[in-house]
C-alpha cells in the first residue's frame, strides 16, 4: 500500500494532475471500523479539461509497467480507480482534504465532513450504510458539516437521514 500511495503522490509531483485525494470506501475506512472494499478510489483535479481526461494518468502508469483491469489500474497490487472531480462539492472536498500519514508516506484523504456531504449527495445503499457508521463512530465538526451541507443544498437531506436512521437529537 505504501508503494501504491507513493506512485499516486508521484502523479501530482510530476504534474500529471493538479491534486488528488483518497475517497470512497478507503476514505470511510480511515475514519470508521474496517469495512470490506476492493478498490482504492482516487478523486483528482485534472491539469486541464480534455476529452479523455484519464489519458495522461493511464499513459504515465502504463510507461511505469502497471496494467489496467477493467476501470482500474493495478498499482503495486492495489486496484486503483481514478475519478475526475465531477462537481463543485467534490472539487472543494479535494482542495480541502486532510494530509495524513500511511507508514512513512504522506497522502491525502477527504476530510470527514466533506466525505459525509459527498455520501449524502451520492446516497447509494452503501453510502447510507457507511453514513450510519460515521455518525456512530466518529467525532464530527457539526458547525463545519452544516456549513458545507447548506452551501451545497444538502442540509434537508441530512436532517431527513438523521430522522430515518437515528432518533431526533
Amino acid at each position: 500500500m505504501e508503494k501504491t500511495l507513493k506512485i499516486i503522490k508521484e502523479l501530482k509531483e510530476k504534474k500529471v494532475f493538479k491534486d488528488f485525494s483518497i475517497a470512497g470506501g478507503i476514505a470511510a475506512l480511515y475514519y470508521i471500523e474496517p469495512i470490506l472494499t476492493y478498490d482504492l478510489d482516487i478523486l483528482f483535479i485534472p491539469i486541464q479539461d480534455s476529452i479523455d481526461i484519464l489519458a495522461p494518468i493511464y499513459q504515465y502508469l502504463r510507461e511505469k509497467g502497471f496494467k489496467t483491469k477493467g476501470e482500474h489500474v493495478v498499482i503495486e497490487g492495489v486496484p486503483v480507480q481514478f475519478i475526475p472531480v465531477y462537481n463543485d462539492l467534490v472539487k472543494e472536498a479535494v482542495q480541502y482534504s486532510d494530509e495524513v500519514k500511511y507508514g512513512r508516506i504522506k497522502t491525502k484523504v477527504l476530510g470527514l465532513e466533506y466525505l459525509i456531504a459527498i455520501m449524502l449527495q451520492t446516497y447509494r445503499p452503501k453510502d447510507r450504510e457507511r453514513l450510519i457508521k460515521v455518525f456512530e463512530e466518529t467525532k464530527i465538526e457539526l458547525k463545519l458539516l452544516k456549513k458545507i451541507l447548506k452551501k451545497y443544498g444538502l442540509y434537508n437531506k441530512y436532517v431527513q437521514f438523521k430522522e430515518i436512521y437515528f432518533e431526533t437529537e
Partner: protein
Amino acid sequence: MRQNKAIEKIIKGKEQRRKELSELSFKEKIHILVKLQKMAEGVKKQDKTADRTVWHI
C-alpha cells in the same frame, strides 16, 4: 428481564469494539481489510469475481 440486560450488555460490547476498531491506525485498518478480502474470497458469488480480488500488498 435478565435476558434483556444480557443482550444490552452484548450490544454495548459490540459498540465499544467498533469504536476501538475505528481508532486503529490507517495501516492497521488496511491489514484488517486485506484479511476481510481473504475471508470473503471463499464466499463470493462466481459472477462477481472479476472486480473483487484480494490486494497483494
